[in-house]
């Protein structure tokens, strides 16, 4: 994520208050993530799951991810290859879940100026920003380094794996 700042990414737009039932509908929760992902956002955008391509970004209004603790809501976006979500604000629970799964969320006050189908670039090397198709810079809030590390590691599972391995090595005998 931090290395490919020059990639042009296609924008998918949704509105405000996108809830976890829209991202991971309850009726499919008994299935694996592939099935859940195929129904991701269908209540708002039936074209999304089939049309989205790896590396695309999802741009939303405020309060993205409100509702349930089901992390499949974030996992479905990751499964579909979404490179980042860009929105003015998130549910706190969804925010934790997304980073735990290695999905980058950018908190961008002017996210809603971005248009459907617009191509944007994102940069997280320093203070994160989004560059729109006219080359204008939209600043984003800083992402704490331990959360950025989690994204770069591919999520908390990989962080824990390293931690467990370190523990095994450091244990006597």
């Amino acid at each position: 994520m931090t290395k490919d700042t020059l990639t042009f990414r296609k924008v998918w737009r949704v509105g405000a208050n996108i809830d976890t039932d829209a991202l991971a509908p309850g009726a499919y929760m008994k299935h694996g993530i592939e099935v859940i992902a195929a129904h991701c956002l269908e209540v708002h955008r039936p074209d999304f799951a089939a049309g989205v391509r790896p590396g695309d970004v999802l741009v939303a209004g405020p309060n993205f991810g409100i509702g349930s603790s089901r992390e499949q809501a974030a996992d479905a976006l990751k499964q579909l290859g979404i490179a980042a979500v860009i929105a003015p604000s998130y549910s706190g629970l969804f925010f934790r879940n997304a980073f735990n799964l290695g999905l980058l969320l950018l908190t961008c006050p002017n996210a809603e100026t971005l248009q459907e189908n617009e191509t944007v670039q994102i940069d997280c090397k320093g203070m994160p920003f989004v560059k729109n198709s006219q080359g204008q810079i939209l600043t984003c809030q800083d992402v704490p380094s331990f959360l950025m590390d989690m994204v770069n590691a591919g999520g908390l599972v990989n962080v824990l794996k390293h931690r467990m391995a370190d523990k095994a090595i450091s244990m006597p005998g």
Partner: protein
Amino acid sequence: MSAAVEIRGDRSVRTRGSTLAQKLIARAAGQSHVNVGDVLTCQVDLAMFHDSSGPRRLKPMLADIGAEIWDKNKVVLVLDHYVPARDADAEKIIRITRDVAKEWQLPHVIDSEGICHVVLPERGHLKPGYFCVGGDSHSPTGGAFGTYMFGIGATEMLGVVATGEIWVQVPQTLRMVWHGALQKGVCAKDMMLHMIAKFGMNGGNYQAVEFAGDTVRGLGMQERMTLSNMSAEMGAQVGLIAADSTTRAYLQSVGVSDEVIEQSHYFETDDSAECQRFDFEASQLSPQVAAPHSPENTKAVGAYAHVKPSVAYIGACTGAKLADLRAAAEVLKGRKVAAGVQLLVAPASARDQAQAAKEGVMQILIDAGASVLPNACGACAGYGGTFEEGATVISSTARNFQGRMGPASVQVYLASPATVAASALKGYIADVREVFA
């Protein structure tokens, strides 16, 4: 989370007192004082997960990272989302959950006896001062017991069960101070819907909400739980209420020993602590109803008298505890629901249902025409057994998102159990105060 996570704490407030939230986090982090904004690692006193978020997801991940549960005594597993099984997939999830519970030799498993947020305190697992996590978004319910409890996803739960630790950013506190007495028929659910309408679905901004004032102190534990429960719908991380004599009496009633009750931590927000304070007058509050498709879409009940529900649903951790069943029975005693309305009651726990039966509450509901459903999440979770195409539902549950409790055409109105009962009785969304007049 619009403020995202900022690591620096505000050192300038050091001389001020602490909030209930700060004191709970300080204890769990092993610090004498914590500042708003600090990011800290906390020791977890209790981790709760259920059949959907729990073993089926944790087992493969634990194996993958080569870890075991840090302390089985601090884990509670509740089977409530997929029970009773409605199809082969649900059956498989339940079987996996039960097999893993046996394999892990979990000492605390509550199977098909009620909804996690209700059975957890009912079995005496929550103690004032605790720092807890739950694999479910309504985990803030535990805040009613003076515990810092919040919901997390399955991967973060993996981190907790592997290490016994979790990070938290010390939140600001939004202190909701309620004064005076509620009118007859007006419930904690109405207070909460009113606050959600005022602050919005994410108005809590993942900070701490604290409920205080004489109105709150006068509520029983289950009504307090309704406030804390729906803090989730305000986007707060936790919904806290300082433990007091009512909390102690509840703990005693569920068999927690006097010794443990004495040793618990009864923290309170200091007068000098920095909070955002909001005052409410309880006597001014009308019954509230949230229209489709958001809990923040709330107005006083009178706005919806034209709506004729086909289903009246009393269910969920939010709205089918013993206190909720009693509130509905008080409205329906000696009466029958209107023609064309189907009244469904899914008591939140087997113990609450047994007590309601003993008090004659269940018989009143059945005589009024209620069908009684299993002690589980049922239609509220939306995992199955949901409402039919085109249904109009008045429900005592917490969420009315489009498509959650059935097809997108289902219209769900949220209200208190008393308002659901009054609406079932009248055949339209009705003001419960008129039934008592």
